[in-house]
């Protein structure tokens, strides 16, 4: 028995050893699989890069030389005498010479061109493209306005090893891992040395990590510093080196390493770091700048050259010294580099994008065609319709408008601007703070639209044969009818205005006349007209809809007014022009498209009434910002209890919608004219809009009428107005003031009575 024990023991130990070796082998195999699959597959989720619209230069383009120079500098062009290479420009008399960079747009690559520009009185007058006398103009690459990020919020600009300056690689190896090209992933001696140094100091003063280990740490592991993790890191580094060669590992390192933070956006890799700190491409950096990037590897936050320039400088100079000591640069080059300033550009726009509301719209429009993972992982390049000038005007309009109408700062706002002809969205402001990437009111605040809905009802009436002069009765509903609909509407001023011509009922936004008109037409007709205007949401088909008891977003209202503005052609608001893959190969274009038009005459007539809103009705206050000769068409909207204020309308070239209200739905006493219109007016005024000059379609004639009864008038009628009519609807009778028969006495008496009865 006793003799058998050791044998059992031996067998047990052998089994345990076998198990341990198997487990270890399994663990290593598992790590190996992890290392390979991550390294072989696509290594990085690349956020989509979003661009504004390209700047197009042509004779007559409304851009000053100063604005062009600002744009050029924003996209990284530099001043250089003689414009020697692409991406340079210089002043020439009162004009500008420009050498454009090659750029991959969504519809093809534009080659570099030399261009001469001349201005005359603030307008670009001449654009001559060298070698292309027939060219109608030239595009300049657009501003980069942000990204569509995966959850990790990592941003990077991939570089290939052959495009990386050898000096950078040399400096990196000299400073971080001198034995890089000789070791197999770990340096046991260095680890022991570092451990000894740390032990003596009682804290971590030295790291023994190779570049490979640093890559593994960044690539596969979390940030904890435990012994187990250290062991795992070492094994993975060995495995990585066993499978891949040094250049592949180095290239991965250059693209992976964390080098800074921009708000919520993490800056990874040297390619993006070059842009982030110096506004240049990596290949364009001098020795001093390359040394600063290498200096940052040790601690991007501690050595942040913007926040801690002295620390950054000391570390940079130390890197330069190591480069000199290793013979990468000579004494003179080292001296020049040490004397160079840090060269960091002012902090670029913060965070993921300065235009979160617009990029949100872009993302949603692209979600119809792309999976979310493609948008956040494939490095797509997205070309949008954003016009930075219009966006800036909208932001100022919202800020100053809100400051004037809401000094306490309780209210929120949203504003959208689009191009009248094409439906291209030029600007989106999603709230009081346009940089805040949270709740996007322009798209997501679905609020009661109030009188903004009325043009749809009046359009339906005009299509059905009503005229702008048709008298509508602005009086309370008969009690029986009010009981039947269970609701008794009132006018904003609390009064009834008797018989009013249709266009005035809209211009002054009379509720009683509108509800009576709605009861005559039926609510289904309103819903159907709204659908043709482009409002596709399911709406409550109750009489309260006549007065806008429907919750719609500012974007949906933009669509509705866009259709009216575009002569009745539904033109969906569009935020994306095209998409390329990350190498610049075209993937998709989103060309201009228009839908089947509404009846031309009715659209023309309702536009005339919307111009009357601004000329004489509830939108009169717009004259404070926009000259009446611009003949703007617009409509105010106010929800019940004054919780939401709206203004929507269009000029000759722009459509815009403004909303003001409280997120908590508690604000009261708001009106479209007093609270939303000022934001709209300020924004459009800054954009110097074109006058609105609707072209009358065939079959429209202009006739003088007496607004009192809607009959024809002549110069004897003091109140006469001239209105457009669809052929066949012109009143044939003359008003009493124009010699027409006066109604019989009993009829006048009955009318008088009728206007005073409920």
């Amino acid at each position, binding site marked *: 028995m006793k003799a058998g024990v050791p044998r059992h023991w031996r067998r047990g130990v052998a089994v345990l050893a076998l198990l341990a070796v198997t487990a270890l082998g399994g663990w290593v195999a598992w790590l190996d699989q992890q290392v390979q699959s991550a390294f072989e597959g696509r290594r990085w989720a690349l956020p989509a890069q979003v661009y504004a619209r390209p700047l197009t230069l042509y*004779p007559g383009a409304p851009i000053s030389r100063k604005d062009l120079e600002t744009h050029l500098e924003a996209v990284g062009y530099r001043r250089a005498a003689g414009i020697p290479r692409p991406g340079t420009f210089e002043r020439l008399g009162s004009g500008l010479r420009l050498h454009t960079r090659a750029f991959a747009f969504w519809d093809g690559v534009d080659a570099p061109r030399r261009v001469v520009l001349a201005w005359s009185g603030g307008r670009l007058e001449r654009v001559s493209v060298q070698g292309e006398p027939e060219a109608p103009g030239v595009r300049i690459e657009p501003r980069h306005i942000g990204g569509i990020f995966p959850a990790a919020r990592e941003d990077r600009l991939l570089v290939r090893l052959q495009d990386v300056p050898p000096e950078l690689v040399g400096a990196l190896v000299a400073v971080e891992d001198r034995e890089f090209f000789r070791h197999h992933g770990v340096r046991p001696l260095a680890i022991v040395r570092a451990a000894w140094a740390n032990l003596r100091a009682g804290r971590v003063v030295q790291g023994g990590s190779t570049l490979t280990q640093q890559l593994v740490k960044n690539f596969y592991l979390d940030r904890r510093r435990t012994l187990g993790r250290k062991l795992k890191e070492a094994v993975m580094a060995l495995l990585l080196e066993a499978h891949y060669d040094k250049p592949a590992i180095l290239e991965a390192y250059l693209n992976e390493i964390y080098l800074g933070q921009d708000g919520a956006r993490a800056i990874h890799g040297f390619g993006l770091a070059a842009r982030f700190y110096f506004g240049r491409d990596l290949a364009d950096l001098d020795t001093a700048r390359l040394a600063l990037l290498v200096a940052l590897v040790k601690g991007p936050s501690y050595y942040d050259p913007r926040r801690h320039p002295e620390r950054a400088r000391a570390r940079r100079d130390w890197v330069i010294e190591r480069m000199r000591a290793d013979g990468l640069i000579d004494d003179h080059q080292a001296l020049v580099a040490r004397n160079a300033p840090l060269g960091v550009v002012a902090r670029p726009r913060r965070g993921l994008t300065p235009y979160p509301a617009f990029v949100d719209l872009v993302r949603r429009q692209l979600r119809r065609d792309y999976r979310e993972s493609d948008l956040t992982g494939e490095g797509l390049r997205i070309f949008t319709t954003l016009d930075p000038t219009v966006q800036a005007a909208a932001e100022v309009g919202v800020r100053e408008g809100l400051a004037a109408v809401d000094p306490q700062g309780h209210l929120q706002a949203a504003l959208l601007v689009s191009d009248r002809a094409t439906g291209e969205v030029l600007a989106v402001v999603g709230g009081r703070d346009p940089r805040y990437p949270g709740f996007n009111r322009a798209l997501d605040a679905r609020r009661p639209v109030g009188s903004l809905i009325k043009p749809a009802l009046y359009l339906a009436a005009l299509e059905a044969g009503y005229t702008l002069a048709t008298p509508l009765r602005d009086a309370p509903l008969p009690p029986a009818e009010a009981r039947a609909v269970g609701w008794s509407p009132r006018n904003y001023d609390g009064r009834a205005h008797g018989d009013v011509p249709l266009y005035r009922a809209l211009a002054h936004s009379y509720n009683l006349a509108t509800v009576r008109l709605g009861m005559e037409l039926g609510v289904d007709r309103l819903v159907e007209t709204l659908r043709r205007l482009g409002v596709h949401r399911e709406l409550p088909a109750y009489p309260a809809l006549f007065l806008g008891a429907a919750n719609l977003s500012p974007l949906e209202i933009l669509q509705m007014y866009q259709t009216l503005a575009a002569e009745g052609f539904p033109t969906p608001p569009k935020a994306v022009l095209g998409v390329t893959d990350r190498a610049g190969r075209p993937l998709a274009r989103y060309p201009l498209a228009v839908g089947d038009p509404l009846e031309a005459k009715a659209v023309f007539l309702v536009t005339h009434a919307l111009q009357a809103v601004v000329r004489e009705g509830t939108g009169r206050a717009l004259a404070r910002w926009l000259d009446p000769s611009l003949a703007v068409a617009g409509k105010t909207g106010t929800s019940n209890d004054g919780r939401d204020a709206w203004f929507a309308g269009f000029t000759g070239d722009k459509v815009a919608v403004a909303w003001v209200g409280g997120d908590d739905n508690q604000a009261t006493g708001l009106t479209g004219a007093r609270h939303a219109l000022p934001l709209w007016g300020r924004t459009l005024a800054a954009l110097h809009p074109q006058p609105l000059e609707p072209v009358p*379609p065939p079959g429209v004639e202009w006739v003088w009428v007496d607004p009192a009864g809607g009959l024809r008038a002549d110069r004897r009628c003091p109140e006469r107005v001239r209105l457009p009519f669809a052929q066949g609807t012109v009143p044939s009778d003359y008003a009493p003031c124009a010699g027409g028969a006066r109604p019989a006495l009993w009829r006048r008496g009955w009318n008088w009575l009728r206007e005073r009865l409920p």
Partner: protein
Amino acid sequence: MIVVLALWLAACAGGPTPRTTVPAEGAGRWIEAGRSALERGEMVRAERWLEQAVRVAPRDPRAWRALADLRQAQGRWEEARRLRLRACRLVGDCP
């Protein structure tokens, strides 16, 4: 007397003559360039230049007509028809 009256009535009925829309300077060059790209069969370039023409001079019916011709060449008949309608509504001469 009748002639005077007729003239006076005509003056009244005519309505405000729409201000002639002056095509923006340069729109013509975009249209020309777009049309010659179309003739060469360079559809993408033609689209780019003709859309630019519409942006530069949205009131110029020639731009919309040229874009309609492009759509027709691409075999997109329905869109061509709507764009032609867009052009004629700007002039007020739709059939």
